[in-house]
């Protein structure tokens, strides 16, 4: 159309003008975002990949919530640097020789963040609250062994007779039978102390307005966006060396990597896809820290259904797969091979339990002995996760060589768990992560026949002798004897092979160069966040006690 030709000329000019303006602006603005520009000075910035569901200790079941709650609350005891039990609000701990009576004297002067001093009655309230059906706590198992707990939960009594207030600062807990792990249970988030008046004021909203005794106080929670805590100036123990912590909810791993690289996060748990890049990058490789986390990855075998009701078939499964090769290649060595269900760090200084090596010939001969000379077909269930699928596809190839034809069934997480808890799956890929640092946590919930399904024993494994040994170990207070029992139980479980034992994964985090004092722990909910500090980048002063010098 000719009459638009002058229009075209004006447009050409306009286009060039816009292009040049944008180009100049871009160059001018390049670098105008300094690293970490959007951060508050003196605050630690961490990532969450999902919004915590609750900060009410009675309701916490997820790792994100447990990690945050550890900074807001305290219990009678907690886990120390080497996962040993150390006093927290309790100043002294006495255990009766028969292991049923626990006496605590509280430190004086410990206060909730609302100013009120903690008393023994607060612990009685907090613990009974867990068992109260109205609270709907899923962690009643933490206190179910306390004398009178069952009667209280069924409404027969108004209080738990085994939790006794002996004075303003004295508490006694009596169990219905000896249980060696009770102190470890008291270190769990479920056993944190909460103030009754705040719980009753906020009711269900206490989840979002937590009040505790911890080194940090929740200041603001923008759900699904961020959570801000400030240091508690009246904390009774070692105070925080940062002004506060801000957790940012960043669901996408690559976004978190960009945020970290831009200086907006101070610490990052390295996503698998970025692992190689970080460990080879000259800027970051010296800042990577490794932690052995307490977990076991496994292929669970449904011991109620053929063919896995036959131990020889289960052993054949263990011999069929070269787990070491998969760990070295697919997972780039980010773990330790598992010979049994218990991470080796929990069974120290003992005889190494030999696990199953890769031996396809042995696998085939076991299958023949079990009556499956031509192999069989199975379905392996997994939750829809790309890393797991890659591992299972390799496992599928190994099983095929042994004559086992496996079909991988991917299910979304909720439906996957339902299938497992109902015992529908022949075989499934899962991991078990510790709540507390004791071998019992990898034996009782996962292999005792009283825990079939949702209790943790998703392989539906049953062995009367193993049940008996586990119960005996739980009653055995002497740690040396208990460890011997654990080793014996583990040996029997390895022989019975209700799982194919794969590995114990390690966690890798990378920190910013200005972040100091970082410690990694094997369990969620242990880190109080009081050791870490931000080095002043301008003055290069490293005085952790002087927080004013630590502002950026």
């Amino acid at each position, binding site marked *: *159309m000719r*009459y*638009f030709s002058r*229009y*075209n000329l004006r*447009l050409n000019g306009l286009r060039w003008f816009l292009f040049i303006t944008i180009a100049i602006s*871009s160059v001018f*603005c*390049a670098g*105008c*975002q300094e690293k970490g520009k*959007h951060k508050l000075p003196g605050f630690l910035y961490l990532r969450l990949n*999902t919004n915590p*569901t*609750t900060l009410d200790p009675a309701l916490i*079941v*997820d790792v994100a919530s447990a990690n945050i709650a550890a900074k807001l609350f305290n219990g009678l005891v907690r886990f120390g640097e080497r996962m040993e039990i150390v006093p927290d609000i309790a100043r002294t701990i006495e255990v009766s020789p028969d292991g049923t009576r626990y006496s605590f004297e509280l430190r004086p002067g410990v206060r909730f963040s609302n100013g009120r001093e903690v008393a023994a009655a607060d612990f009685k309230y907090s613990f009974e609250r867990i068992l109260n*059906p109205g609270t*709907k706590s*899923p*962690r*009643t*198992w933490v206190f*179910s062994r306390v004398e009178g707990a069952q009667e209280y939960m069924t409404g027969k009594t108004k209080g738990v007779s085994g939790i006794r207030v002996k004075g303003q600062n004295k508490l006694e807990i009596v169990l219905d039978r000896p249980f060696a792990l009770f102190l470890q249970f008291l270190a769990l988030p479920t056993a944190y102390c909460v103030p009754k008046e705040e719980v009753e004021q906020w009711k269900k*909203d206490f989840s*979002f307005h937590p009040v505790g005794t911890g080194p940090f106080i929740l200041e603001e929670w*923008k*759900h*699904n*966006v*961020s959570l801000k805590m400030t240091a508690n100036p009246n904390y009774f123990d070692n105070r925080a060396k940062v002004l506060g912590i801000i957790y*940012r*909810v*960043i*669901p*996408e791993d*690559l*976004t978190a990597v*960009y*945020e970290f*690289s*831009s200086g*907006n996060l101070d610490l990052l748990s390295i996503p698998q896809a970025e692992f190689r890049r970080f460990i080879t990058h000259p800027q970051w490789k010296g800042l990577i820290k490794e932690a052995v986390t307490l977990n076991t990855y496994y292929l669970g075998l449904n011991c109620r259904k053929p063919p896995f009701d036959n131990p020889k078939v289960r052993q054949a499964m263990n011999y069929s797969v070269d787990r070491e090769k998969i760990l070295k290649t697919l997972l780039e060595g980010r773990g330790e091979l598992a010979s049994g269900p218990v991470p080796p760090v929990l069974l120290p200084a003992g005889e190494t339990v030999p696990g199953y090596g890769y031996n396809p010939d042995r696998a085939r001969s076991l299958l023949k002995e079990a009556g499956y000379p031509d192999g069989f077909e199975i379905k392996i269930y997994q939750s829809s996760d790309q890393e797991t699928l890659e591992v299972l596809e390799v496992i599928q190839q190994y099983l095929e060589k042994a004559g086992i034809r496996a079909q991988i069934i991917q*299910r*979304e*997480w*909720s*439906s996957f*768990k*339902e*299938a497992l*808890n109902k015992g529908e799956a022949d075989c499934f890929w899962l991991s*078990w*992560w510790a*709540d507390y640092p004791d071998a019992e946590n990898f034996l009782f*919930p996962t292999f005792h026949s009283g825990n079939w*399904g*949702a*209790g*943790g024993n998703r392989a539906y494994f049953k062995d009367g002798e193993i049940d008996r040994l586990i119960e005996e170990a739980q009653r055995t207070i002497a740690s040396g004897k208990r460890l011997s029992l654990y080793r014996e139980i583990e040996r029997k479980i390895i022989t019975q092979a209700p799982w194919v034992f794969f590995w114990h994964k390690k966690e890798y985090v990378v920190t910013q160069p200005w972040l100091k004092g970082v410690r990694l722990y094997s369990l969620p909910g242990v880190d109080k966040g009081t050791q870490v500090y931000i080095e002043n980048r301008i003055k290069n002063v490293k005085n952790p006690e002087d927080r004013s010098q630590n502002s950026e």
Partner: protein
Amino acid sequence: MAAYLLRKIFMLLLTLLGITFVTFLLIKSLPGDPVQGLIGERAEQATVERIRRELGADQPLLLQYRGYLKLIFTGDLGTSYYTNRKVLDDLKAKCLHTFELAFAAMLFASLTGILLGTLMAVTRGSILDRIGLLVSAGGISLPVFWLGLTLMLIFSFLIPLLPPSGMGEGELIYLILPASTLGISSAAYIVRITRSSLLEVLTQPYITTARSKGLTKTKVILKHALKNALLPIITLIGLDFGSYLNGSVLTETIFGWDGVGRYAVEGIMRRDYPVVMGTVLTGAAFFVFINFFVDLIYLYLDPRIRVRE
């Protein structure tokens, strides 16, 4: 006219009721148990059964649906199984964030798309037109998650102009990347629709008549041609805006934007039924009302529709 409007409103309400019923049946027929996520990895069976009873998950389906309808008619969308927060309260905050994102995305898409489409139509066959067609094809084809991460790489990492993610304290700078990501594919469609619609209008005899009357080229295009070309563009903008108001889970996930899309998907993954029902109902309501509003705009723009109705 009044009868037409009443008829539309009645159909609107019936549609919403049907949507709640179908959604309820669909979500309940999915495998998966909401209680499993609430109890963690280890729980006593008695605890599982007790929680299931308290959620009402053991009741017959029709009773559960009836209970839900009772809640809706009192203006309550229920309480999340996981967070114990009122779904309505959560949705109010998230809908606002989603509206911000959707509005910004559509503003960007509309301005960019209409401007570029107009330029392409009036310079048909030129280099601008050809480049525009290529770029718009790219905008339509590129997956949004790739686009978002690429824009983040360029503008937050390589040339650190913009924050990578988050919402800050509500500053506009945090909206730029997610709105651009979301708006680019809409802009690409709008460019093409604008171009083809305007080209068709420009060939009409009344455009030649308007030019021969002495009107300037700008006036001819903006007042006569574009107005008549707007109908399909408005339809597209309305449809896209409606779908963005339902949340854009990929964009929200990549940029950490607290919107309805992520809320709904997390609810589905967890089988948090009140959240799913609440978000579907709210999203359907937005969509239905937006389309109703578009119908009203049609009535205004096109007198023929007014006469027909």
